């Protein structure tokens, strides 16, 4: 979707266990939900 919108040089960082130990952990584990950092650039 980022590239479809005109972004380039898309990077994705490592997964962060955002919900580990929180009450939402069970739902997060069920669908393998993690947090990620994304970096992209608008075409110059």
């Amino acid at each position, binding site marked *: 979707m980022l590239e479809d919108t005109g972004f380039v040089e898309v990077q994705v960082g490592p997964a962060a266990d955002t919900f580990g130990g929180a009450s939402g952990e069970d739902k997060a584990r069920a669908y*393998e939900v993690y947090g990620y950092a994304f*970096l992209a650039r*608008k075409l110059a």
Partner: protein
Amino acid sequence: MADDLVVDPGTLRDQVRDKYREVAVDPHRSFHFHTGRPLAARLEYEQAAVDALPDRAVESFAGVGNPFSLRRIQPGERVVDVGSGAGFDSFIAAGQAGPSGRVVGVDMTPEMLQKSRETADALGFAQVEFREGLAEQLPVDGDWADVVISNGVINLCADKKAVFEEIHRVLKPGGWLQFADIANGRPVPPEALRDIDLWTG
């Protein structure tokens, strides 16, 4: 509602606003996600930058990742924070951009806006401003920003394509989008996608 959206954007927005109103006014109660300083440590924010902020700037932080982990804000850059909440990421960005930079946080929840504005005043961060608005209709001129940041917000928007198009509009050519959000490794069943209660908790 557009045919390709699985939930009504307005209804979802109301639920999100209700949830994050609670995070603004009662940040120490239990949520289905972590908040505050423990969350910032979990997401590996720079400890010194977090320690430098007062509790009111950090306690309502409810992000899902670290939008500064792949790139730091450079001194003097103009930054837009989409869904700025109580301002935590905006204040981190302001620290990196320095006094010659500019940060505009945009949020739709009045309680978050009030809290972030009061904190900015208390910190004396003249380069930070908070505006009421939606991710799909940012109150920012086109080609204004060097950087757009966001944290755990886009996944809560029904029309993600509209959000990315709006971010693209406000960025200068060559500008950076650096954001954090959740992604699932296993497919979510269609009936769960249509259950609006699951979007916010």
